[in-house]
């Protein structure tokens, strides 16, 4: 089922949680709503689910307005950050809940319920824990049960609110890969909320970046990472070097760097900020390239397969971070205190 979000706004008192949000989610897609806390992503998810209602705008499922439908009628699977498992019910009964509460006419027989639940427990690899209670499970197991419970009612849409937010790093990594595999098997349209950029980039087909109640950018993980549309996206996704300066008639002077900024030919000495990812900073031993600028190595940090260099440009002393592969670093062979030459392979300038 496809979802369309149209002109959604939502306020909590004086706080504008969502400002005119328009989004499309196609059938079978796995989309991440990514943003810092307080950006409105959870509110948007809850509005899609029908747990919260917008002031203006509409949510459409398969092109049909869901404004008049309650959460019960929307047939969405919702997974809560803190699982919201029914603590007085066993794992089996938790998963069976959605089937047992159906009106008698539509309720499967006990045998059908048993088969269905067992199939789902197999899917989440927890058949052996069917009789356990939520309190006896680990966080990762609880979240898997919550997912199976949501899937039991065969929802047309799966909505997950920070599904891995309450888990420790290792379990989180395993579970998100598992979620991706599960999605590839089931192909149910899924939207999940996260503040973890790594999680969003790794798991999602598309990422919706949100900030302060607005959508900043929508795109595949590659698109949003390689071509951030706004300064916010640049700073939120991954590390970035920031240079302050000015743009004048299509030419930018930011920090010690001078580059062309053809998109700002009208700019008249406007303040601007240049963004460069650490892995787009090229480091040379010799001053060969006319665009390269001299910098002093402040610190060298080994990060597993990568090496992080902290640099300071000689002209202004602006701090700068470069990321090299181990091999690249061995070829460079630079030590703290030495002078190297850096070139920005890919800089974006925003006014």
């Amino acid at each position, binding site marked *: 089922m496809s979802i369309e979000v149209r002109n959604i706004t939502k306020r*909590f008192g004086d706080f504008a*949680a969502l400002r005119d949000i328009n989004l499309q989610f196609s059938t079978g897609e796995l989309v991440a709503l990514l943003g810092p*806390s*307080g950006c409105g*992503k*959870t*509110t948007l998810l*809850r509005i899609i*689910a029908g*747990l*919260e209602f917008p002031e203006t705008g509409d949510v459409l499922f398969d092109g049909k307005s869901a404004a008049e439908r*309650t*959460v*019960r009628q929307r*047939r*969405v*699977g*919702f997974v*809560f*950050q*803190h699982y*919201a*498992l*029914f*603590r*007085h019910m066993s794992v089996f009964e938790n998963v069976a*809940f*959605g089937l047992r*509460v*159906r009106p008698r006419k539509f309720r499967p027989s006990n045998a059908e319920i048993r088969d269905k639940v067992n199939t789902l427990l197999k899917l989440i690899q927890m058949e052996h824990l069917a009789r356990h209670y939520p*309190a006896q499970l680990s966080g990762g197991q609880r979240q898997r049960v*919550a997912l199976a*419970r*949501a899937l*039991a*009612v065969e929802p047309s849409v799966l909505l997950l609110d*920070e599904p891995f*937010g*309450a888990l420790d790093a290792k379990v989180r990594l395993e579970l998100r890969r598992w979620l991706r595999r599960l999605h590839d098997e089931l192909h149910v349209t899924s939207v999940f909320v996260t503040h973890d950029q790594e999680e969003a980039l790794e798991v999602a087909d598309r990422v919706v970046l949100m900030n302060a109640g607005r959508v900043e950018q929508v795109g595949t993980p590659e698109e949003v990472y390689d071509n951030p549309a706004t300064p916010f996206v640049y700073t939120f996704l991954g590390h970035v070097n920031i240079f302050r300066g000015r743009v004048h008639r299509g030419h930018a002077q930011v920090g010690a760097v001078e580059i062309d900024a053809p998109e700002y030919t009208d700019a008249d000495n406007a303040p601007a900020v240049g963004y460069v990812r650490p892995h787009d900073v090229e480091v040379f031993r010799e001053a060969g390239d006319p665009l390269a600028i001299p910098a002093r190595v402040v610190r060298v940090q080994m990060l597993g397969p990568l090496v992080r260099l902290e640099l300071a440009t000689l002209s202004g002393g602006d701090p700068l971070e470069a990321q090299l592969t181990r091999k690249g670093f061995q070829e460079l062979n630079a030590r703290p205190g030495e002078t190297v030459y850096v070139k920005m392979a890919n800089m974006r300038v925003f006014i």
Partner: protein
Amino acid sequence: MSTIEDISSRGPRLSKAATEPALVRWALTALAVAFLAVFLIVPLAAVFIEAFDKGVSVYIAAITDPMALAAIRLTLLTAVIAVPVNTVFGVLAAWAITKFDFRGKSVLLALIDLPFSVSPVISGLIFILLFGASGFFGPFLAAHDIKIIFAVPGIVIATLFVTFPFVARELIPLMDAQGSDDEQAALALGAGGFQTFIRVTLPNIKWGLLYGVILCNARAMGEFGAVSVVSGHIRGLTNTVPLHVEILYNEYNFAAAFAVASLLTFLALVTLVAKAIVERKARAAMRAAASRRTSGGPHEH
């Protein structure tokens, strides 16, 4: 192999500076025990000693006296009406207050606390002023030959008023801590409002609810002040157990007074035990709710 030092270092130990000399500790403990004995245990024992002072036959005669039996019946009737009514009200009020946001929420909260903050005698007087012969509804009631004051309805109404807050007060903090994620999950899974309440909310709050019901019942059966004002003390008709005890006592019929009082005391002891058990379970539910909330950071909306 574990040595004595191992064992002693395992638990949290108070530093020397934080502990008092043995003499002081003993003195303080003795003082506390003595206080408890004088003000709680001795009176409790006195009730039973006085009750059986004139022998078992007098005791049995006192509590099987027709007037005593009538008082017991009335007290039970009052509790049977007041406790379920206030249980239903308490659950509804707690549900409304904790799961929804609406105007006048704080007013409702304050109103629920009102019976706690008003002296029971004043509570009784309120109903005299409303339903008494010269009260607000007095002429209307007299015209339709409805008796509330100095009759059973008055006693029930006064008891209802006084025991109003117990269940709601017990449930509000618990349901507040539990939040509404469970209910929202149930709704999203297709459960209706009533199904959600029966299958999800009620099991979540059952220990807190039971605790509130026990306290409500103890008060409903033991209430003196408010009931005394509206009852009129008509023997065999509008006397509850506490009022009956007072009458017997005023007639210098000490053995009988204490015999009937021992029934209330016994009720108190049963309540105490039940309360202790249920309270432990309720606390555990509260802790579980609290830890679930804090384990994953703040809730974003």
